[in-house]
């Protein structure tokens, strides 16, 4: 079964454990600046949102690379950068519509999420379940369930399933 990272911003608290886990696994250092996943803080709205590579099937980065340094890992579906081939031309960083491929000044190569070979550390480190690693064909299941619940009599209120407190604090309630 192929799996994908599922990001649920409404559960994110902005702790950056994912960024440290990512940089530790990939670079051996606790360093948000070297993380392939980033958490954004929308202060005025009181919202945090983690964001990283979605592993497009027809990946722009992969097709744009002039030296074929970005390849598909058949086990995980991840588009991985081959450091030994990458020449640091940065064309992929331009091609990616989502900004999730970035250049690393220290190594002279680009870096992007590679799903940690099928065991993504960001998901393991997330304390609230805002980042999970789930069946790639069912990433919408949780949200479908939440909306479906609205049709169930006695569901609390129309907006409730999307509200973070219901999801995060479900156990306590």
């Amino acid at each position: 079964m192929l799996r994908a990272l599922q990001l649920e911003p409404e559960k994110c608290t902005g702790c950056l454990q994912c960024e440290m886990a990512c940089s530790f696994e990939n670079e051996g250092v606790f360093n948000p600046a070297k993380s392939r996943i980033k958490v954004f803080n929308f202060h005025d709205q009181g919202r945090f949102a983690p964001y990283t590579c979605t592993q497009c099937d027809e990946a722009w980065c992969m097709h744009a690379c002039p030296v074929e340094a970005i390849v598909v890992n058949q086990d995980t579906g991840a588009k991985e950068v081959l450091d030994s081939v990458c020449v640091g031309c940065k064309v992929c960083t331009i091609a990616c519509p989502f900004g999730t491929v970035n250049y690393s000044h220290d190594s002279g190569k680009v870096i992007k999420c590679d799903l940690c070979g099928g065991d993504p550390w960001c998901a393991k480190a997330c304390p609230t379940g805002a980042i999970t690693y789930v069946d790639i064909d069912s990433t919408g299941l949780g949200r479908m369930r939440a909306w479906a619940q609205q049709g169930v009599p006695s569901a609390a209120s129309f907006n409730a399933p999307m509200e973070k407190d219901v999801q995060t604090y479900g156990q306590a309630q």
Partner: protein
Amino acid sequence: MAWANKVLRVNLTEGTVSDEPLNMEWAQQYLGQRGLASKYLFEEIDPRCDALGADNKLILTTGPLTGTMASTGGRYSVVCKSPLTGAIACSNSGGYIGAEMKNAGWDMVIVEGKSPKPVYLYIHNDDAQLLDASAIWGKSVWDADRILHQTHQDPLIRISLVGRSAEQGCLYAAVINDLHRAAGRSGVGTVMASKNLKALVCRGTKGVGNVKDPLRFMQATEDGKRVLRENAVTGQGLPQYGTQVLMNVINEAGAMPTRNMRETQFEGAHNISGEAMHEPRKSDGQPNLTTNAACFACTIACGRISTIDKEHYTIQNKPEYWGNSGGLEYEAAWALGSDTGVDDLDALTYANFVCNEDGYDPISFGATVAAAMELYDLGVITQEHTGGIDFKFGSAEALTQAAELVATGEGFGKDLGLGSKRLCEKYGRPELSMTVKGQEFPAYDPRGIQGMGLAYATANRGACHLRGYTVASEILGIPEKTDPLSTEGKPELVKAFQDATAAFDSSGLCIFTSFAWTLDDVAPQLDAACEGEWTTEKLLEVGERVWNLERQFNLVAGLTSKDDTLPKRLLEEGANAGPAKGKVNELGKMLPEYYTVRGWDQDGVPTAETRQRLGLA
């Protein structure tokens, strides 16, 4: 090693910056952050110096676990001599700036002297510069933060700032970071502003890559996170209600200081509680609380992110306050609410926003407003003094106007910026000031929680709940329940909490973990990260050493055992309601024994034997 092993020394008088290695011999004795910076301060300044003079130093300091994956490993402290108390000040904050300093490769920034003109410190990894602050001097924290982000064109910089209150000399001004986290107490922001230093702007991309045993560290931190997750307080209560989980609990215990501590229960407590922050309001159906939020690396996430009701009188015509910002935590809700008799949640949230926006401590502010309200109630001050404000207990308008005045230091705000002690002295009624060593009480009445009376009286930075939180034992039963109305065993309990807390505060971790963790949970994390052997026993010894060092600082600064006391009201007037009704705090029964337990003589001075045991000169 976990320490960055590098100190940035900034001489504002000369306008120079230089780096030097961290004193690793001291790090083995004082660990980091609170302990290590206190050691530097004690060695480098004369504790008798003028806190607002060029001779005082301001140290911004991280701990060895700051910037790591250890849960809550993002703390930093601001250490200096306090202008409010004349004692040592050490204020701790979360948010992201501490980790950013560490990621830039610095354990500590020591700020010396005084700049001839306003400057700010810009750090980008090894590069540190003093830059002209004329564009942000005179601006609020929030305005200056926005201007600095624009100036540097870098959304990823983290910033610590002082606001207008600090510039105007408010004696309890804070250093605010990340817009709404605060090194809040004892006027550390006032000291920063007195040096003409407006801000620390930091960007660090080096990270923390030198922990001693990475694999063991990851296992130890994972074990720690599991303990936090499975604990009822850190796993459920704090994420859901924040520290505001305490409002109803403490009120029921009859330990809710109300109306300048005249009373011990507040009839409006529910209206300003954590539960009330979840209730939808009439105007837009939204609750006060938008979400909980974490500081760097924290897996608890007790922070509150809130909005004020757009229809509330405070912000009806001020769209700039319509967004989210740091909401009420228990101490702020108590000080701004119960202590002033105001139970208007939106007014409290607004006052709290203003405290953050212009950088001052809501505890000292609320308690000073409460003292002023009592002076007004007694007719000692009138509208002539308050600038026409009807300063009566329970008035939300008086509270929010007072907040605006302290923010800018205008009118009656000047008086309120003095703090409760100097305000009450100024108007001839010093006994109405609810302070120890000049610092205002936090949210636990020591008549209903006896151990807290001793903890307040002996706290090295003046009245404070974060120096020995025996509430955990006396009310919450952590690690085991003791009778809050009894003095039995409290001297030992207070000492144990004080020493353990000093160790937590020296590590880079948040003291709130101690609802679930003991030092047995902390030691394996430190031991896997830091050079040397770090056991629970060693940490307790570090904690006790830090406590005694702070005490020595204060003794040299001129404080004596006479300062280890409580206001007459708490020692002589019985609690008016609740389980402790009729009780006073029996400090006299506890203090002599505490000195003995500490290995101090009956003047509160550490004996030669104690100093020798702890390796203090």
